[in-house]
């Protein structure tokens, strides 16, 4: 057996198919899919989205997660959070609603328990942070800057499932500016602002966060939605509204990446319903310099790896030598 397929978690059928493909392609010179987002060097542009990958440990049982371009942690808050009461997830046509409520161990416990393992992965790790207040963002950014090897801080100004903070910051240019500015003042690390799609004009928000010092933007977070339990005749989720993700939101996400690319010069991390390399290519053509896989992880743990190899194959077949040739090429 080809040792490249050891520990991939694939069964014998998949290994046989992959080995056959590998024999055919061993001779080919592959396109260079390495990416660089505001100084964060990645061997490929495929990241995993915050909240869909925990702190990496769960998926390490399936494959070597250092094959990913980068990992974005579950959203962290200053103090531990226990999250929202169940139900927290609900399937919808080609998607799902979630109302997790930022359950996380808090930034200190993250540093103590998760960071020692994450920092040894050898790939960029980005800490996603969410504050109730502007000061929370500043304090978390400052604390995380002390970590040796953290690649960047992603300011989550778009979580729709919490009482305070989160999306409330990301819905207005002024408050988005304030939150990102606080992160900027708290750290010298690259700052990524994660934008909410639940806004009238995403271009205004993108401009505001770049003015505040964001080095990159990531979008989209979940679209606000809701479900009603027809038996109890009440909203299904305790917090009434929840966040929609999955293939259902992809066209909205592509449109917003397109708009933001037209507006600001900083790199864009595109996400929202990406399940295949075709989706990834679409986001890159719309203007994304890297992409994140979110909900697809739940459906197929190997989705990010399949996207990496599919993207490499696509670029090779098309004679595209580097990613830069196609970022925003649809404009």
């Amino acid at each position: 057996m080809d040792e490249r397929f050891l520990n991939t978690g694939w069964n014998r059928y998949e290994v046989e198919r992959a080995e056959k493909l590998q024999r055919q392609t061993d001779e080919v010179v592959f396109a260079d899919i390495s990416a660089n987002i505001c100084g964060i060097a990645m061997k490929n542009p495929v990241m995993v989205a915050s909240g869909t990958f925990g702190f990496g440990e769960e998926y390490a049982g399936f494959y070597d997660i250092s094959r990913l371009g980068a990992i974005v942690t579950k959203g962290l808050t200053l103090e531990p959070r226990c999250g929202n009461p169940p139900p927290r997830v609900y399937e919808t046509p080609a998607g799902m609603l979630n109302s997790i409520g930022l359950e996380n161990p808090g930034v200190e416990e993250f540093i103590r328990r998760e960071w020692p393992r994450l920092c040894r992965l050898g790939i960029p790790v980005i800490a996603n942070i969410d504050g109730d207040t502007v000061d929370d963002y500043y304090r978390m950014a400052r604390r995380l800057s002390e970590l040796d090897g953290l690649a960047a801080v992603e300011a989550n100004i778009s979580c729709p499932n919490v009482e305070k903070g989160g999306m409330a910051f990301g819905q207005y240019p002024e408050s988005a500016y304030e939150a990102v500015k606080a992160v900027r003042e708290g750290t010298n690390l690259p700052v990524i602002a994660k934008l909410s799609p639940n806004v009238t004009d995403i271009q205004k928000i993108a401009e505001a966060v770049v003015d505040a010092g964001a080095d990159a933007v990531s979008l989209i977070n979940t679209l606000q939605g809701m479900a009603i339990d027809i038996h109890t005749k009440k909203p299904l989720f305790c917090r009434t509204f929840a966040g929609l993700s999955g293939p259902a939101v992809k066209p909205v996400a592509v449109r917003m990446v397109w708009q933001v690319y037209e507006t600001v010069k900083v790199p864009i991390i595109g996400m929202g319903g990406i399940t295949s390399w075709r989706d990834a290519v679409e986001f890159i053509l719309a203007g994304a310099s890297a992409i994140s896989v979110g909900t697809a992880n739940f459906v197929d743990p190997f989705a990010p790896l399949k996207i990496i190899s599919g993207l490499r194959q696509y670029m090779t077949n098309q004679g595209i030598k580097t990613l830069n040739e196609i970022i925003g090429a649809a404009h």
Partner: protein
Amino acid sequence: MSLFCGLVKIKENAEIAPGIYRMMMECPEVAECAVPGQFIHIRCSDTHSPLLRRPISIAMADKSAGLIEIFYRVVGEGTGLLARKEKQDMLDIMGPLGRGFPLQPGLKLPIIVGGGIGMAPLLFLAKSLKENATSSDYCCRESFTGLAFAGFATEMEAFGMSFLEDCGFKVHICTDDGSMGYKGYPTDLLEKYLGGSIFLSSISTGEIAGAAGAPGCPATEAAMLPSAVYACGPEALLKKVKEIVSRAKVPAYLSLEQRMACGVGACLGCAVKSAGSGYLKVCKDGPVFEVNQVILSQETAP
């Protein structure tokens, strides 16, 4: 941790009762390491509809043949698609996932309480309990493995009973409509038994195989036998079991269900209230919980 994720071949998929299916799959990787109470996460469709996997308990794992078995009830789109799968079709599964039932050494009298499709993981458990029984166990001396209280809506929906008997369980079937066995809930019988108001020998319902060899021991003695209750079924059943065992001070393990996405503990979607602080995850901390670990819905915190 050995986790499998990939395609497996379906060896059998048949409707064994109205709306209830039994599926057997060839998957040596899962069969090798699965323990009772664990589940597999099944992708029912190749498309985005339905999008998420479906968690289904493992009802049997045959290491030597490399086979695993599940029972499922058709309740929606996902299980509806599963029901249409044919022998030789390939199916995308992930597993084995979660924590199963602890098989305590020195356990003298295991009591299984199941309702409807919740019987599935208990069948696997019954087999393991039989295999793990030692000659010093009370039940073993009396040549049976344990007690099973199994509830179904109606006689038509009962499944797995002869299997339980083959595993040496004294089986007491209950049906909601009285079409078979005791008319009522399995928790009624559990309550009577643990409360000491019925004797081991006298709870025979006429459907018990091997009733001739049924041990007759006074209820007081039986109630003092070190035992544990293993339950799986609708939430109402689990709540009732919890109530009964905490009164009787008998250890118990409950297998829970919750809306689930990733199945591996990453998305934090399948939360259940912890008796301590915060929430536990059904997929990773469970699906089997020690009864005092969790607070079931509509139950007030202690």
